[in-house]
């Protein structure tokens, strides 16, 4: 089998969970995926589960709430925090008074400790409910940082073991079913081409295989393009040939900037090679954008870059044999 990917296949699972180490670009790339899907006519819901403002910031909107808001054409967003999901869960089971009691007596923490993962299950349960309703073609979940992602995605299995009966168990089973069905759910791993995030990506990918959760692709963010290497003397000589006056300080700066970016690029290549070695998954690169504030224009640039990366991947990818259900090459 070839590593296949085309834009439509990219979103064949209705729920797409974007995961990665802290600060690698989960939120940014969730937004990019949403914009990309929306531009092909899909109705997309972006879900924030940490009550952070990154998503809305990226679109220059107000902080998200429990009610979905429109961020851009075809892109909607809301947050689903554990507290809200817990309240709603008890309400749905006609146990409104229990949830009030839990909150007024500060017992939510106790319950969450007693049944680890319950908060995650309720959040994912809410995602499942939205998925089942079918209002959106695609639901993109901006997941908690990687260490937490595994706990997050493993919560269903854990709870099924811990809680033997009752509605929480049923919820956990439903969530587990959704997560392990590749036609319904896939995880997109995001990383920087640096050693620590790459290690974490590989570990997460392997753990997800064990959990039988599909990984759709790895997005390698923050990629620096190489630059021709040139010494100060070579640069001066080029200036003479080109008939331009160049102060020495400028030749030095050009040489330094080129050697810096090439050094980063080499490191990134090494890390990319490790990823390719260890994971038989589509790996797509996204450029580092030279700005301190991406905003909507940055998201649009990255969206184009992702579309190009997907197209290139299809035309260039060598035929790779995928071991059946395993994420690793032999």
């Amino acid at each position, binding site marked *: 089998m070839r590593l296949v990917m085309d834009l439509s296949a990219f979103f064949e699972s209705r729920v797409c969970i974007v995961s990665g180490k802290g600060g690698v670009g989960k939120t940014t790339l969730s937004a990019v995926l949403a914009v990309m899907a929306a531009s092909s006519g899909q109705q997309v819901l972006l879900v924030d589960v940490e009550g952070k403002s990154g998503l809305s910031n990226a679109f220059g909107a107000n902080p998200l709430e429990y009610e979905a808001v429109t961020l851009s054409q075809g892109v909607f967003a809301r947050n689903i925090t554990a507290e809200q999901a817990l309240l709603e869960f008890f309400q749905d089971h006609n146990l409104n008074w229990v949830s009030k009691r839990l909150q007024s007596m500060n017992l939510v923490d*106790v319950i969450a400790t007693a*049944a680890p993962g319950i908060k995650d299950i309720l959040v994912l349960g809410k995602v499942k409910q939205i998925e089942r309703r079918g209002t959106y073609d695609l639901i993109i979940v901006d997941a908690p940082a990687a260490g937490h992602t595994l706990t997050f995605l493993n919560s269903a299995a854990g709870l099924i073991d811990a809680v033997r009966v009752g509605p929480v168990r049923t919820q956990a089973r439903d969530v587990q079913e959704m997560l392990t069905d590749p036609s319904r759910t896939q995880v997109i791993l995001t990383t920087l081409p640096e050693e*620590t995030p790459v290690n974490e990506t590989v570990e997460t990918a392997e753990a997800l295989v064990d959990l039988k959760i599909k990984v759709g692709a790895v997005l390698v963010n923050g990629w620096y393009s190489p630059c021709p290497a040139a010494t100060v003397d070579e640069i001066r000589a080029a200036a003479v*040939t080109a008939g331009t006056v160049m102060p020495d300080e400028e030749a030095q700066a050009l040489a330094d900037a*080129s050697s810096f970016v090439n050094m980063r690029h080499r490191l990134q290549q090494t890390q990319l090679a490790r990823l390719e070695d260890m994971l038989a998954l589509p790996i797509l690169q996204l450029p580092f954008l030279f700005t301190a*504030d991406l905003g909507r224009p940055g998201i649009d640039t990255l969206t184009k870059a992702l579309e190009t990366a997907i197209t290139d991947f299809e035309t260039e990818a060598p035929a790779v044999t995928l071991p059946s259900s395993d994420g690793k090459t032999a």
Partner: protein
Amino acid sequence: MSTAFVEIVENSTTLVCCGSGGVGKTTTAAVIAMAAARKGRNSVVVTIDPARRLAHALGLDTSDLGDDPRAIDPALWDPENKRVENGSMSAVMLNAKSTFDSLVEKYANNPAQVGRILDNTFYKNISAALSGTQEYMAMEKLYELHESGAYDLVVIDTPPSRNALDFLDAPNRMTKFLEGRAFRVLTAPARGGMRLVTRAARVFLRTTARVLGSEVLDDIVEFFGVFEGMYEGFHHRAAHVRDLLAHESTLFMLIASPRRDALEEAEFFAEQLREKNFPIAGAIVNRLHPHFTESLAQATRLRSETFTERANENEATTLLAELYANLASFQEVAQKERDHLVRLEELVSPGPVEKIPFLGEDVHDFSTLRLLEDTLFSKDTEADKIAAIPHAQ
């Protein structure tokens, strides 16, 4: 490095490094401890989940590792033997579970109680599942090292929290949680006027049991039952931890990356600290793109455009077009990153805002930590030069 920063490294006794995920908290905490050791101080750094190779460099990757600090061979952090006399550097990796276990051992009345708690499923869940536990245990470690009197500087890394304020609140949350007052009222035997409350409580417990299963509930009830006799001790301890956190000698160092959103988070945190009267030592902005030249980005960009138009003329113009485009991109991002620092500088003033450049390589051994230390100790432009020079392998 500003004199204000030298002052911090030379004189502070407790430094808490905090900031959002991936900005360099663990790295800078190690650099500060190393810088202090080289200035003759006895420093210890408490790291939380360090990258594997950094853990290795700090000698924190052996399997028998408890959570006691280990002294690091000076040949590693001071290979040229240039340190001020008597300096030492130690490191420890936080293990929230074993820190909690030792607290249980300390405050239990007898070994049987220790055993019952350590075996309780609910207890086992606490370090893994109760949010804020890692934060609290980090503070607990800080207190322990501080009290030991063995170090004159404790630098503490913090876990990547959803909200950087989580750990300020951690001692309170932990005490409230362990007190389990609500639970004790619920499970107390009915007597006299309590009967009504208790009946409602029974219904509540039964309902909760139906939702979560009765085993789960039994574990909770057992835990709070056994823990009861230890609560006082814990409560006292947490009060001391809180006092140390609030003491004027405990300084907070904000770590941020120079992106607009990361800086906004750091600014928010600075505001919160100010409001609550926690002293801010300063801020470190990490991973700034190097500044290769004093000339203006716009000028370089113009040159780049000129040569791009001429790129087909010959090899020289092609080369110059690419080199100028690359330099212009770096100048633009470096400029934008520095433009975003103004507000943070206002907020931490009179504390310094130090800048650490993005290195051409990852930071996971002493030679790269030294490189970062050097950038902290030199002037801006020199620091950028250091970052730009590929480091000898």
